[in-house]
């Protein structure tokens, strides 16, 4: 594929750009203010890919290389937009656990470490609501609000469906670190969904 691009094969280039497009737009959208800006960033990333083709050494896969370029560009574009990452709604701390400690019984309790505020099942939530566009935009906003590394890991693993190996390679992180970041990210997205799907409180 890289050889075809180096040879300026237009058909190959068209296929690659089209194949990666939706995925790249989504990934860029987590960093910048609008879809329009995301499209610009993706275009800039492709220009950088074309420019850098000769420097690509094939140490990572072509896909992870393209996405590394993309996220670098998206990150700096986001910074130029003065979009400081909105940590307001979710904890900025990279080290918070997936579930807040106060949802468990304190160490002094007979049931120390067991749930004091257990999760309510979502089995009563209608499928149409679970899979609504509101739910999707809630998840999108939750991912956007995550600390950068957690955001990248959950976006590539759970949204784009990449393998752990691909994510580790794209982000230059260890497998263990990847799982920790993924766990925290999923935990926070789950808790946003939990608040949203919580059954109405009856007094």
């Amino acid at each position: 594929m890289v050889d075809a691009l180096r040879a300026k094969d237009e058909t190959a280039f068209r296929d690659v750009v089209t194949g990666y497009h939706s995925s790249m737009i989504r990934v860029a959208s987590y960093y910048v203010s609008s879809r329009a800006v995301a499209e610009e960033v993706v275009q800039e990333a492709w220009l950088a890919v074309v420019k850098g083709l000769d420097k690509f050494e094939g140490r990572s896969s072509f896909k992870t290389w393209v996405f590394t370029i993309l996220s670098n560009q998206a990150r700096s574009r986001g910074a130029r937009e003065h979009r400081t990452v909105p940590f307001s709604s979710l904890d900025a701390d990279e080290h918070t656990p997936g579930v807040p400690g106060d949802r468990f019984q304190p160490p002094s309790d007979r049931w120390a470490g067991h749930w004091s505020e257990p999760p309510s099942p979502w089995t009563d939530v209608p499928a149409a609501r679970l899979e609504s566009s509101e739910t999707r935009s809630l998840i999108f906003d939750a991912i956007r609000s995550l600390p950068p590394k957690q955001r990248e890991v959950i976006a590539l693993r759970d949204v784009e469906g990449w393998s752990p190996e691909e994510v580790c390679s794209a982000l230059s992180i260890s497998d263990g670190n990847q799982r920790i970041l993924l766990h925290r990210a999923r935990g926070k997205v789950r808790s946003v969904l939990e608040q949203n799907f919580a059954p109405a409180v009856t007094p």
Partner: protein
Amino acid sequence: MTSYEDFPCEQAVTMVTDYFEGALSVEERAVLERHLSWCDWCATYVEQMRETIRLAGTLREEDVPAPVMDVLLEALHQMRGS
């Protein structure tokens, strides 16, 4: 990790991603699965983590407008020195 009676929910929830990813030891996996077999709360939590992953995947269903190819193809030719 000791007997499953002592195994707290607070610890079970930290293991969910490692569980899904196949990163637990045989013993850890056994202890967690035993815990999940009687603790409905943690089983609910695990189910919700699964559902969270599934729902995150639905973000892929959003429509994305097609790429603007002209500019890129022009760049391909220019930059590749034609």
